[in-house]
């Protein structure tokens, strides 16, 4: 029995902790927003208000933390409160260092929140720092009559016996006055809403199924009609010659038969009427229901954008830049799922602005610009279904020559085309993966993947992205995306015995051509449609499906869909065009985050699952097929021999950690304890990549890199520097030495390192 009670208690605590997490997240968000505002504002009055607000959040969080036994969080909140209390009494001056420490405290709580029960986040140092802030005031400032502990009395702590149940809820109390007594909103976990939404969307298949039933019933009706007619005809014929007893029996049967069919016909008729009515009403209901549920899941942009001021602040401090982020129109609402998908694009774009766009204050002053750079995010509704997102900065703008150089280096652009490119065409190159203007890979950027990812995500959401730039005026990215993940119309086609959906928006024309109309030029097949020559391919070939050679098409015609955009159009041959219908995109599941040429799947009225084709991909794949016919399956040949990586690191712990991580990811690893040993190792074996620490005895990472670069044999061997030094100078030293990538340990997550290595070899 006591065991069970224990279990109940832990269950309760578990539930409470998950609630606490939600609450804490909100409070921490509010705290960091408050701190940011506080740092920005100069009005004394506003300062007091913000200090007060942050103070209250910290206090509430402290109480809630105590309720769920999160002592570390409680302790930090306690210290935070004390510091804020002195700040409130204006006994210390707000300084950037102070804010750093306060932000740090908020971050630490956030970390604690996400550390599993057993995990450890060191907090003693932080507590000491916060305590120093307090005492710092006491030594330098005037001594006050009111010692800090007394302050806590004015905010009486909950009695220790206070039980968990109402603990968290009760903590909202200090917020009265800000919030209306009765809230007009109810908090529902997004998980629940998500499943509701999925159910709602599932109703679409009921609607589609009903369509099918109606057609089936109508077929049945037709059949019965024909039967009835036939019966009547024969009936008449038999009736004319009645001379025999057997005929009488047959007549009787026919009469019965006739009545029976009549009855069935009338039944089918009523059924059709009923089903049709049902379909109409269910169809209407489903549409409305979906619309409303979708609306329920609309979130304002601010729910995402709110996290960015802090990110920009941290980024710019690291880079010694001054950047102000201005958010406009963030109250506009958009489907939660789209917003989630837009998170990475936003991060990439904003990082780009800070990293590449905005100059250092000194540079800006030289160019007669205000010291502080400006990054603006503007959201505006352009139609009922679409919003425009404008991310712009007033930095140096994009250096087109560098873009072109990078493209040439990566073999995307030929030297020949280098000078022919128009400004707009050159600008388009930045969306190509691997093109980067940055000379080195860092944690933040330079991999040349960012903008490619942004474009891919935006296009996947059915949006478009464009960019404008001017020297010294900065650059601006314009994204137009739909507000809801609506169903769209798609054309159901058959190729190589399989069904596929092609989004109707990508289909310019559906037509049929004769076999003779296909011309061959330079190994490419072409057809002429309305006077324009376009390349011609078979959909089955592009999708790498075995071609069905049944050319017994009675008509002798080939069905063709003209797909693509104005500049790039390709004619795809299919075996059959089934119909056009409403489809709902579903993801392919976690194991298939990205499949070539397939963007998702949909479920037909019959319950059958059909892949939806990704048209931008198809166009790209087609080009590949045309240029290198026969190498389609080359992608399948995975490298059987493992890549060999040399890890140079003086700390045994780090060395073993790196070795394990890399081996787990399928690399072979050799180690060296410093630069000298590394050089020796390089002579004995052929390595594919070197991962090196910077600070090491005897020979450091910079020196090792330069020595390698000086040697012809290793000049092209990729070098990744992993370091604790995070400064511009060091990064530049890394570039000078010739390193390919520079990763800072503080933000050293393995995914990042692996991604970089993967990219380099």
């Amino acid at each position, binding site marked *: 029995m006591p065991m069970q009670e224990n279990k109940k208690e832990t269950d309760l605590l578990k539930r409470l902790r998950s609630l606490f997490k939600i609450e804490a997240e909100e409070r921490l968000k509010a705290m960091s927003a408050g701190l940011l505002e506080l740092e920005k504002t100069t009005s004394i009055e506003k300062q007091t208000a913000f200090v007060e607000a942050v103070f209250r959040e910290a206090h509430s969080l402290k109480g809630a933390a105590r309720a769920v036994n999160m002592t570390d969080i409680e302790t930090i909140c306690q210290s935070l409160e004390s510091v804020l209390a002195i700040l409130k009494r204006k006994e210390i001056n707000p300084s950037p260092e102070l804010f750093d420490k306060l932000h740090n405290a908020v971050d630490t709580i956030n970390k604690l929140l996400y550390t599993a029960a057993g995990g450890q986040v060191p907090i003693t140092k932080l507590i000491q720092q916060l305590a120093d802030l307090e005492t710092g005031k006491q030594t330098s400032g005037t001594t006050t009559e009111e010692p800090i502990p007394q302050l806590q009395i004015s905010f009486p702590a909950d009695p220790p016996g206070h039980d968990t149940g109402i603990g968290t809820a009760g903590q909202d109390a200090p917020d009265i006055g800000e919030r209306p007594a009765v809230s007009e909103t109810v908090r529902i976990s997004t998980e629940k809403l998500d499943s509701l939404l*999925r*159910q709602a*969307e*599932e109703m679409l*298949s009921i609607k589609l199924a009903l369509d099918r039933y109606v057609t089936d019933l109508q077929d049945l009706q037709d059949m019965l009609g024909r039967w009835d007619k036939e019966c009547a005809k024969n009936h008449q014929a038999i009736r004319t010659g009645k001379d025999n007893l057997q005929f009488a029996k047959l007549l009787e049967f026919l009469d019965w038969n006739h009545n029976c069919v009549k009855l069935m016909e009338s039944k089918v008729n009523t059924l059709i009427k009923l089903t049709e009515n049902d379909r109409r009403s269910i169809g209407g209901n489903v549409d409305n229901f979906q619309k409303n549920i979708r609306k329920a899941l609309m979130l304002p942009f601010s729910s995402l954008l709110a996290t960015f001021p802090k990110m920009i602040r941290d980024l710019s401090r690291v880079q010694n830049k001054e950047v102000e982020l201005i958010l406009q129109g963030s109250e506009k609402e958009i489907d939660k799922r789209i917003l989630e998908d837009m998170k990475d694009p936003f991060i990439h774009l904003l990082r780009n602005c800070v990293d590449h766009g905005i100059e250092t204050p000194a540079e800006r002053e030289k160019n007669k610009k205000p010291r502080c750079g400006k990054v603006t995010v503007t959201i505006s509704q352009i139609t009922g279904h679409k919003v425009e997102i404008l991310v712009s900065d007033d930095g140096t703008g994009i250096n087109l020559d560098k873009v072109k150089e990078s493209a040439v280096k990566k073999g995307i652009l030929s030297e020949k085309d280098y000078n022919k490119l128009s400004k707009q065409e050159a600008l388009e190159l930045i969306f190509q*993966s691997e093109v980067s203007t940055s000379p080195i890979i860092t944690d933040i950027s330079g991999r040349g993947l960012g903008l490619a990812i942004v474009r*891919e995500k935006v296009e996947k959401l059915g949006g478009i992205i464009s960019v404008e730039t001017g020297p010294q005026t900065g650059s601006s990215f314009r994204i137009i995306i739909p507000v809801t993940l609506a169903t769209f119309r798609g054309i159901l086609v058959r190729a190589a015995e*399989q069904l596929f959906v092609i989004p109707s928006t990508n289909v310019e024309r559906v037509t049929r051509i004769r076999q003779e109309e296909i011309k061959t030029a330079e190994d490419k097949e072409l057809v002429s449609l309305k006077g324009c020559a376009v390349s011609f391919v078979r959909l089955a070939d592009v*999708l*790498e*499906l075995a071609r069905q050679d049944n050319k017994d098409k009675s008509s002798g015609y080939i069905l063709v869909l003209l797909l693509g955009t104005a500049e790039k159009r390709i004619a795809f041959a299919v075996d059959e065009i089934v119909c056009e219908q409403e489809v709902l995109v*579903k*993801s*392919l*599941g*976690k*194991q*298939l*985050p*990205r*499949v*070539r*040429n*397939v963007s*998702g*799947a949909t*479920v037909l009225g019959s*319950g*059958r*699952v*059909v*892949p939806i084709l*990704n048209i*931008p*991909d*198809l166009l*790209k*794949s087609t080009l*590949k097929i045309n240029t290198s016919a026969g190498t389609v399956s080359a*992608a*399948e040949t995975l490298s059987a021999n493992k890549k060999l990586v040399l890890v140079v690191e003086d700390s045994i712990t780090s060395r073993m950690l790196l070795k394990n991580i890399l081996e787990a*990811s*399928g690399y072979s690893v050799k180690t060296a304890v410093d630069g000298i040993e590394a050089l020796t190792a390089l002579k004995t074996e052929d390595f594919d990549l070197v991962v090196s620490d910077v600070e090491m005895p005897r020979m450091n990472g910079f020196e090792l890199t330069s020595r390698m670069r000086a040697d012809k044999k290793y000049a092209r061997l990729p070098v990744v520097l992993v370091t604790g030094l995070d400064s511009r100078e060091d990064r530049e030293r890394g570039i000078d030495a010739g390193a390919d990538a520079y990763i800072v340990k503080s933000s050293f997550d393995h995914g990042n390192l692996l991604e970089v290595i993967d990219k380099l070899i």
Partner: protein
Amino acid sequence: MKKIVWNEIYNRLENARTAAERGLTPSHEEKKMILRARAKILAQAPKNKESTETHLKIVKFLLNGEKYAVDSAFIREVCSLKEITPLPCTPPFVLGIINVRGQILSVVDINKFFGIPGKGANVLNKTIIVHTSEMEFAIPAETITGVGYIARDEIPPLPPTLTNIRAEYLRGMTGEQFIVLDMARILSDKRIVVSEEA
């Protein structure tokens, strides 16, 4: 002819009757004794009985001639496998996609993933949906042969004949020669994820 002794018969009948009555309604003491004895048996802690703390609950299944077992902690559900829609441009171990109550899931043939040629093409009737918070897919199976328990800390190791490529994905082999899959390892393996651009 033998003479019938009626008295004897009456006596025997009488005895039988009391015996029968006593048998049906045991005395109070007897009842107590019987109940106590039963309670004692029931109260005994099951010896060697599988508990979730010391034992792993496994689901056993057949796939193309291979006998496999999966830790039930990773199983979301087991359902019948109807129609698999093949997906172009995916590696051979992705058999296709299925619709499970409105959710699309990929079907992964683990034999093909391990690089073992399956023996014969049998009808795949069932599917086991395995998941962690980061990963989820369906494993096809010919049949589910049942549920069993295996001691957590002493899963018998694989026979040396089985230490081929897939050994890193396996935890051991049960007494009935079911290969226990290391589902945590498989589900977190980057090689199983298909993420490819055109």
